[in-house]
């Protein structure tokens, strides 16, 4: 069963191309991550899937319903947790949940039970009758998620669920979300610009860059596809030769990129390549300050597929 089908979505806002042919598929029951820097098109994709906006071209289906032709069926099937909390600050947690349940068609005892259940699930039972304005960032986020779940949707969209949370609250949120992926028979699509978050939570993920999906797979698969190890060298200033050319002249080095004074290379085996690499650089007159070697991370995956370092790719928010 395919819970989400996205087929070459295009969308522009004036001069800005937000989506440039995004395509991917999410299977029922999985946690799917859309990973990319701010401005990559993640949020726009989610907004199309949640029927908040329409694409200029392309097609998308959620829970078997076309987002354009059958938007009201989509709205009944999904829960949407936006980046910026849409809770009513002046209402209590319980009131917010009740209203959300009411517009989703829940009534009477069923609504009451469901609201209590959700407050319990996200750990807000004690704060249920307090006005949301007094909630902490983490509590508000948990309420947001409960709001998205009130009608037991088939697909839950989480747009940057942990952005703006402190590290402690983020770790707690990860636990909550992992729990959620188990408890509810639910398909979750989450967007994030934290590589670590995608690695932790997503069964599968797609890397989005400049309005396109550049690669799709499980985090393990993606990392495995980058054979070998990554070696990062910090160079001293004033290199007389091009370090990238020197590195690539070696047979052991598959890839090399230079970012300021940081030379990143990809090699088959670190133990064998490091001595050759160091001596080649030394004979070219390039001084090395430090060397580190590590198994490929999602950061490397990102670098590999987009040709840009993740942190360097953070554009203006869209």
């Amino acid at each position, binding site marked *: 069963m395919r819970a989400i089908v996205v087929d070459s979505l295009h969308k522009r806002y004036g001069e800005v191309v937000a989506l440039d042919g995004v395509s991917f598929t999410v299977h029922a029951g999985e946690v799917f991550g859309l990973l990319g820097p701010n401005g990559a098109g993640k949020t726009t994709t989610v907004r199309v899937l949640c029927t908040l906006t329409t694409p200029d071209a392309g097609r998308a289906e959620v829970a078997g319903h076309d987002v354009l032709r059958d938007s009201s069926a989509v709205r009944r099937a999904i829960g949407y947790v936006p980046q910026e*909390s849409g809770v009513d600050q*002046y209402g209590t947690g319980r009131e917010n949940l009740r209203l959300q349940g009411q517009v989703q068609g829940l009534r009477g005892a069923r609504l009451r039970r469901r609201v209590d259940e959700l407050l319990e699930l996200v750990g807000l039972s004690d704060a249920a009758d307090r006005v949301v304005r007094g909630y902490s960032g983490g509590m508000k986020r948990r309420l947001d998620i409960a709001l998205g779940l009130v009608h037991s949707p088939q697909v839950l969209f989480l747009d940057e669920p942990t952005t703006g949370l402190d590290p402690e609250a983020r770790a707690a949120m990860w636990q909550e979300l992992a729990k959620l992926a188990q408890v509810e028979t639910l398909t979750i699509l989450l967007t994030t610009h934290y590589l670590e978050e995608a690695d932790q939570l997503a069964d599968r993920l797609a890397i989005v860059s400049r309005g396109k999906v550049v690669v799709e797979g499980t985090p393990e698969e993606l990392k495995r596809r980058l054979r070998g190890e990554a070696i990062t060298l910090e160079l001293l200033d004033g290199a007389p030769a091009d370090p990238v050319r020197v590195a690539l002249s070696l047979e052991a080095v598959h890839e090399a990129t230079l970012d300021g004074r940081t030379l990143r290379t990809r090699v088959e085996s670190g133990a064998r390549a490091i001595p050759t690499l160091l001596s080649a650089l030394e004979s070219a007159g390039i001084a090395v300050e430090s060397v580190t070697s590590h198994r490929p991370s999602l950061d490397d995956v990102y670098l590999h597929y987009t040709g840009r370092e993740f942190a360097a790719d953070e554009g203006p928010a869209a």
Partner: protein
Amino acid sequence: MTAARHTWFMIVRQTRNLMREPIWIALLLIQPMIWLVLYGQLFKRVTHLGGFGTASYVTFLAPAIVVMNSFFGATWSGMGMIADLDRKVVERFLATPASRLSLVLSQIVRSALTAAIQAVIILLVAFALGVHVHEGAAGWVVVVVVAMLVNMGFAGMSQGIALLTRKEATMIAVANFIGLPLLFLSSTLLATAQMPHWMRVAARFNPVNWGVVAAREAVLPGTDWSSIGLHVLYLVALAVATAAFATWTFRAYQRTL
């Protein structure tokens, strides 16, 4: 049907939030009280000029202050919409089956309900100041209904402007821009008979004046029910037209998302 039910849910939410800060309603009442008490005293003798239909200026003034208050309140009602847009409350509902119409209508009805509560309070104060409503209970009902209709007419407009501009500063500018001119181009403070000719003509097209005329007819002796009926009809038409405008601007807003 769904639209009506959802509108009700939304009104409950807004009203509950308002009731959490009842100080707000009180604050909104201070200004009309000042008009009623101070202005009523200051211009007590203005009725000697004639054409007021009563010798008691405060009686002449009270129904008009009710209408003025509901008019002023309505011009600010878009602020609620802007707050919901800014805090993304509207977007959250747009991703649910919530009736789109209910998101707009609830703001207008909530505004009108506030105006009704304020109308009753102002009438009670007026009563304490010795104002006698000629038509009794029916008169009170007319004044409250007219207050609600005037409010709905301008609230629809205010919601539309809120949805088109989405800026509080613009809302404040519009409210200030139309507030006093429409007030002075009506018979709120002075009998029509004492107005220059061109103002009398302008007042005929001023919805605030429609409300003032209808409400005053119910309070002063010699009530002309057909005049009340006619002006109420105008106000209903205005409320329907501006509600349609607000709904249209809501669709325009959705298209910009």
